[in-house]
């Protein structure tokens, strides 16, 4: 339906944006609008003021360096898709982002918007959590950095204060020889995942997995790491037998909700299969 009424401001500097957000109760930051505007259309939100971040050019950059990949909050999916450096600098990010929404939405949707919206089935929060990203935010009480593991606190709920704006998402460095995989199941590509898994590990001199990270989305009220699966992989050769054990462990580690799109058992089986497929990709 038509959107509820709100005031609109389009600041040109970050401090001004923070000030505007703090100036009114129920003020909300508007990034790409691809989640926020549908929420407005469903009348799930009635903000008094929208603070549009589109003129904050500092939030639009993708920086790649020794410290890893830093994505400005206003980086759009399309920017990640088009950035060839990321194919080597962060292939897992690139593979996951290929599953984000449809063509038109990828031209508008942003990294910061997705992280702030925190849909339990969204790819970017899952990647942030799996890769131990640091989320840099700024608010009226100053700047702080929130680890992804502490950021997502529930469905559509985060540690972000109402007057805070996400500035950037910092992904730790990605070793060139790291093994990784990403598998997602959605009924139609671009739709929200029924389940997806992101995995990566490094190999030691004997070809055994170390530093295994396994994350899943769509199976809980927030993205999850699966520590039992990670523990099982570390120190092992990622062969079909190990992958089969990981799949079983993944099924045991998740307790998905039931909804109109999928029953709990189906979602659990899907999540385990996604972990299996992602590990097969990684080991291939």
């Amino acid at each position: 339906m038509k959107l509820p009424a709100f005031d609109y401001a389009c600041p040109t500097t970050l401090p001004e944006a923070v000030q505007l957000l703090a100036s009114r109760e129920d003020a909300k930051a508007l990034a790409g609008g691809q989640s926020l505007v549908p929420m407005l259309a469903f009348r799930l939100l009635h903000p008094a003021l929208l603070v549009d971040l589109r003129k904050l050019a500092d939030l639009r950059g993708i920086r790649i360096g020794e410290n890893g990949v830093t994505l400005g909050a206003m980086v759009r999916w399309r920017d990640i898709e088009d950035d060839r450096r990321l194919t080597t600098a962060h292939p897992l990010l690139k593979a996951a982002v290929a599953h984000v929404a449809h063509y038109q939405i990828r031209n508008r949707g942003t990294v910061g918007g997705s992280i702030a919206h925190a849909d339990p089935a969204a790819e970017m929060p899952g990647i942030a959590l799996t890769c131990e990203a640091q989320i840099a935010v700024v608010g009226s009480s100053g700047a702080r950095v929130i680890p992804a593991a502490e950021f997502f606190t529930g469905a559509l709920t985060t540690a972000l204060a109402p007057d805070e704006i996400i500035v950037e998402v910092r992904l730790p460095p990605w070793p060139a020889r790291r093994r990784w995989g990403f598998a997602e199941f959605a009924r139609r590509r671009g739709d929200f995942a029924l389940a997806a898994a992101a995995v990566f590990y490094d190999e030691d001199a004997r070809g055994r997995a170390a530093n295994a990270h396994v994350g899943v989305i769509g199976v809980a009220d927030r993205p999850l790491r699966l520590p039992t699966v990670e523990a099982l992989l570390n120190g092992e050769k990622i062969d079909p037998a190990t992958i089969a054990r990981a799949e079983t462990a993944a099924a045991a580690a998740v307790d998905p909700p039931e909804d109109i799109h999928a029953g709990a058992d189906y979602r659990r089986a899907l999540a385990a299969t996604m972990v299996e497929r992602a590990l097969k990709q990684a080991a291939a």
Partner: protein
Amino acid sequence: MIPKSGYRFSEKIMLQQSQMNMSIRFEVNGRAVEVEVEPRLTLADCLRHALHLTGTHIGCEHGVCGACTVLVDGAAVRSCLMLAVQAEGATVLTVEGLSEDADLTALQKSFRKHHALQCGFCTPGMITTAHALLSEEPDCDAARVREVLSGNLCRCTGYIPIVEAVLEARAAYRKDPA
């Protein structure tokens, strides 16, 4: 007949919610426009109601069906998920602006030839999306066409003729048409 108190009541509500109207300027189909809009007005409604460009259709109004797709600064976007005020300074292209003369474009003719529409409701969104795709990727394959059009719903055609129409129109977008 609404009692006078009723009017007052609604006026009060209006005042409480009264938002500043904003004057915005942007370019639509090569024409500079200036419109006064409420911040909550979507670009789709602005195009249709303020500018009378009713070729842009509104289906779901929450970013699922793709019927309202227009090009903003060359990129296909859902105009129901963009506020009109966010288009300030932008260049917008709607289905009405694709053809430079009274004739249909090659893409539109291809849709006609392949029966890529029946009721026509999704067609403006299909055409604008395909136009954005072919402008950037005139050599795309059928899989890419399907991927890009996956965000546009059609309840009539079953998509096969749409994909065929887009594939045939590729030649017209190549610098050296084959």
